[in-house]
């Protein structure tokens, strides 16, 4: 469609067929004059409105988007708008982190009899969008290559598993191994600093087991693919939360799982460590204590304080282990979450909306759409059916434009709303170092604010907040159109 003539702005409305579309009809029948900007898309129910439609519209040039459904409790389908209310509220609060003014999106309730209310809603919303003016276009915004320190004042040590404890664990696994198809752990990779996943199928494999602070892979990623097999897994607090989340969603079966739990004080941030190390050919030796990391590299001794290279996500780790362990090893006490924000989020918080959009724009120029973020995420359970790549439904063009790449990041983030257990694999595995964990951290913050401090993966019995509703929402307040 060509750009709009006159002073009209591009405003898209998603209206449920039964109430709000009828309300708009009622307003029409009453000849209630309204601004002409809004274009209405009729949907069966506000619950049908995937927040991604709203973002699609906003990224593709809409200046404002309005969703309107039946009043809570009046849904033609009973509960559709209860779900919509949660999802759309999360969406509204999510927009600012992308650099989109949340005032460009609103959702409300208008019944089929409320022609006057509809008139008021349309007039008011259109007025507000006009006050904001045309929306900045993501692809046209000035890229902002702003550097910041991603490190965080760390207070904690990193994990070192004592040889005795490791032996204890190995023995327990060896005992259990005969009844299991495999046990997931870690082993040394291309050198001593780089650990990789280990699939233990034999006593021989077991000898390679390693569980220290270099072991960053979230092994839970493999569990859904192993459904139908009896699998053991070694977890620390972060992995345990991922396990809980998958259990909640029924993607893995508790009966098929044996959970070996280890305490964890923190993990090493390898990308930063590599940066500090610089180019090297051979890593000859490694000694790790809770506070010091000694390396011999190309014949030279290098010493690092582990506190300087602790992963920032370990600062926010609640530490305690959700109640899912079959066997626990070591001492789990003494770890508490810091109240500080993840550095990525703190950085984005410090930017204004325009800067944030510019920042993401610059990031997306680097994104190569390798999908390492998605494929390493333990919660990305769509696997080969991701809507970012499917042709039916055709959510995304194959064009590698900044806009399409950004939309992919949005899909990934929004699909994690209320589900992300904060393991940080997405960001850790990005080859070009995009701080995409900020999107998830922000969503986790929203979910926590809206749903009484909810944190994904902490309670095996909880229902993820966006897959349920409550008739009265304590923290979601209907906006007034007066």
């Amino acid at each position, binding site marked *: 469609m060509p750009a709009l003539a006159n002073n009209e702005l591009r405003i898209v409305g998603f209206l449920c067929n039964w109430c709000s579309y009828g309300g708009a009809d009622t*307003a029409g029948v009453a000849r209630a004059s309204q601004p002409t900007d809004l274009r209405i*898309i009729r949907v069966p129910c506000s619950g049908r409105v995937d927040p991604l439609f709203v973002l699609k519209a906003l990224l593709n040039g809409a200046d404002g988007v309005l969703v309107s459904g039946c009043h809570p409790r009046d849904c033609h389908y009973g509960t*559709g708008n209860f779900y919509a209310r949660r999802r759309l509220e999360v969406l509204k609060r999510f927009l600012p982190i992308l650099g989109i003014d949340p005032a460009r999106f609103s959702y409300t309730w208008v019944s089929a009899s409320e022609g006057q209310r509809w008139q008021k809603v349309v007039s008011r919303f259109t007025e507000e969008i006009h006050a904001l003016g045309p929306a900045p276009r993501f692809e046209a915004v000035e890229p902002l290559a702003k550097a910041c320190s991603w490190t965080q004042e760390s207070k904690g040590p990193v994990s070192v598993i004592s040889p005795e404890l490791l032996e204890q664990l190995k023995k327990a696994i060896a005992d259990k191994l005969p009844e299991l198809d495999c046990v997931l752990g870690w082993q040394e990779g291309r050198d001593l600093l780089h650990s990789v996943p280990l699939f233990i199928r034999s006593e021989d494999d077991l000898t390679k087991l390693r569980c220290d602070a270099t072991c960053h892979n979230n092994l839970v990623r493999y569990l859904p693919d192993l459904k139908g097999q009896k699998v053991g897994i070694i977890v620390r607090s972060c992995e345990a939360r991922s396990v809980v989340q998958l259990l909640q969603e029924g993607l893995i079966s508790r009966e098929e799982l044996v959970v070996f739990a280890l305490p964890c004080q923190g993990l090493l941030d390898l990308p930063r460590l590599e940066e500090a190390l610089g180019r090297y050919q051979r890593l000859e030796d490694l000694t790790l204590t809770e506070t010091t990391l000694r390396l011999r590299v190309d014949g030279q001794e290098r010493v690092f304080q582990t506190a300087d290279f602790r992963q920032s996500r370990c600062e926010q780790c609640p530490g305690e282990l959700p109640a899912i362990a079959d066997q626990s090893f070591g001492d789990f006490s003494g770890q508490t979450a810091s109240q500080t924000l993840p550095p990525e989020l703190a950085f984005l918080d410090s930017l204004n909306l325009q800067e944030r959009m510019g920042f993401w724009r610059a990031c997306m120029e680097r994104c190569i759409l390798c999908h390492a973020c998605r494929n390493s995420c333990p919660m990305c359970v769509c*696997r080969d059916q991701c809507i970012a790549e499917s042709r039916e439904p055709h959510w995304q063009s194959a064009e590698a434009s900044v806009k399409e790449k950004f939309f992919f990041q949005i899909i990934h983030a929004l699909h994690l709303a209320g589900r992300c257990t904060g393991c940080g694999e997405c960001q850790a595995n990005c080859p070009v170092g995009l701080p995409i964990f900020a999107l998830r951290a922000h969503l986790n913050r929203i979910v926590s604010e809206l749903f009484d401090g909810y944190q994904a993966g902490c309670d095996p019995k909880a229902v993820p907040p966006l897959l349920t509703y409550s008739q009265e929402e304590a923290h979601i307040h209907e906006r007034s159109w007066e």
Partner: protein
Amino acid sequence: MRIGVFICHCGSNIAGTVDCAQVAAKAALFPDVVYATDPMYTCAEPGQAAIEEAIHSHKLDGVVVASCSPRMHEPTFRKTVERAGLNPYMFEMANIREHVSWIGRDIEANTRKATELVRLAVEKLRHNRPLQAQEFPITRRVLIIGGGVAGIQAALDCADGGIPVVLVEREATIGGKMAKLDKTFPTVDCSACILGPKMVDVAQHPLITLYAHAEIEAISGYVGNFSVSIRQRTTYVDWSKCTGCGTCTEKCPSKKSYDHFNEGIAPTTAITIAFPQAIPKKAVINKDFCRQLNGKKCAVCAKVCPTGAIDFAMEDSFVTENVGSIVVATGYDLMDWTIYGQYGHGRYPDVITSLAYERLMNASGPTGGHIVRPSDGKEPKSVVFVQCVGSRDPAIGRPYCSGFCCMYTAKQAILTKDHIQDSQSYVFYMDIRAPGKMYDEFTRRAQEEYGTHYIRGRVSQIFPDGQGQLTVLGMDTLLGRPVEIKADLVVLAVGIEASRGARELAEKLRISYDAYGFFLESHVKLKPVETNTAGVFLAGVCQGAKDIPASVAQGSAAAAKVLTLFARETLASNPQIAQVTAKRCVGCGKCLRCCPFGAIKSSLVKGEEKAEVIATMCQGCGLCTATCPQGAIQLAHATDDHILAEVNALCRL
């Protein structure tokens, strides 16, 4: 595809503010559009014929009509394209009347907007595929909620038409408000004489199952197959044994119970039969006043009951009934007029409601039809009627007219004169609304033949003058003078409101209601008894103020709708339902968790768990589609691709 587009002028309704020819010219350029035109009236016979003709001559396989709201004519045009051999779902509508021409006068902007809405419809249609409805069997029984005159009429008409009826009444007797009336306007014939036989018919009809003193607990299911849980509220009397002999009510020592049926104008006993013609004629114990149930020794009723029907341990019980359709006829209640401090907050016994006045005049009422003042039992000589108490009063959030008060007030003024020859009645009114057959003549009679003084104005205050009478301060706006009347009795024509619990019932039925709790019809003119929930129909005042003849007519209309629905053994399901692409489904079950209808189940496909939609249960809300992260479950004709096509048509530049 080959798409035809029809831009309706709707006379001047659309063409007045939209350049329809230009919209059609633009539409012709849209992808896959091979024909575009702008007829005068698309929905009229020639308009529909033109669509059929165009489908044949242009070999169309999809049609877009841009006209009024699809909520109005979508079914009409679906039938039109079907007649021409297309699948009815290869049709889309653009609403360029209610959403465009009627809400703005800027022709340029409207034309642009209409063009874009047509573009949306075309883009949506391009993604449509023919859909086939499935036939499913239905339960040919009807639930009627509310046993007032509208519900009774609907029940009798349905039952006479051969459809088994389940009639649920909240009170202990059917009859509703009409059973309380003395006479009815404009004929002044006896209410009991015309309603009574119908009530008896209900009791005796073999196809009617009556649950009185019962309420709707829960409703599930969908048109053709509803499952209804009915709460049988405890009466403390085993009705299977009760013969309605009335011995208990004579002997009951608790004689100060509030008499709901008689609007509290006199006390009654704790165990009662509402009135002599009650259907069912069974006793009920008022728990609030029964001595036995309040820890005192009594049980007199149990002792005197010849059939041993009294059961103090009785509790609420539940019955489940399966029906295919529901008629809602829950009527109204009077608003709580005691919010009016200027009328004494209900402190003055001689200020009463019109419904109480009916009971005062009624020969079967506590006074045997003698009009007396509740305070002292004296016959009133000066009676003031105040209309619009709680009607047309925006200050208390009730701007609507209650519809029938003008008429019954005239009737009550006439009857007052009939009862007390030397009385003088005064009626304070704002406007007289008497548009029915013989209605205006009736209000004239009240003035001309019965000497009632009609005073145009509201009453500011009513208060006892300290000397046994009430002072009524009013205004005669025609005279331009305030007036003061010494009254013996003041009758308030109290406004109506939706029956208590109407909103909760609406939520159970998934139907809409307006700001005042009255249920919303599907179309205000053309579908006055239908609701937005298929198979649920409305009758009587629950939909909005109406008098007895209108309520009866609507009761019959609702029955006709039920009989039409049940004219077939099966119903066609809406094929616009969710469909699973098994390949994309990862079996996470998020759709199962969210589905409001339990219409998705998990089934094994090649050893893997996949979601499966139960076609006849899916109602097409699309919540599952919005929930499924991998887009594996798609609501037909509201798929992600449909909506994305619309979003893209609007937003992508």
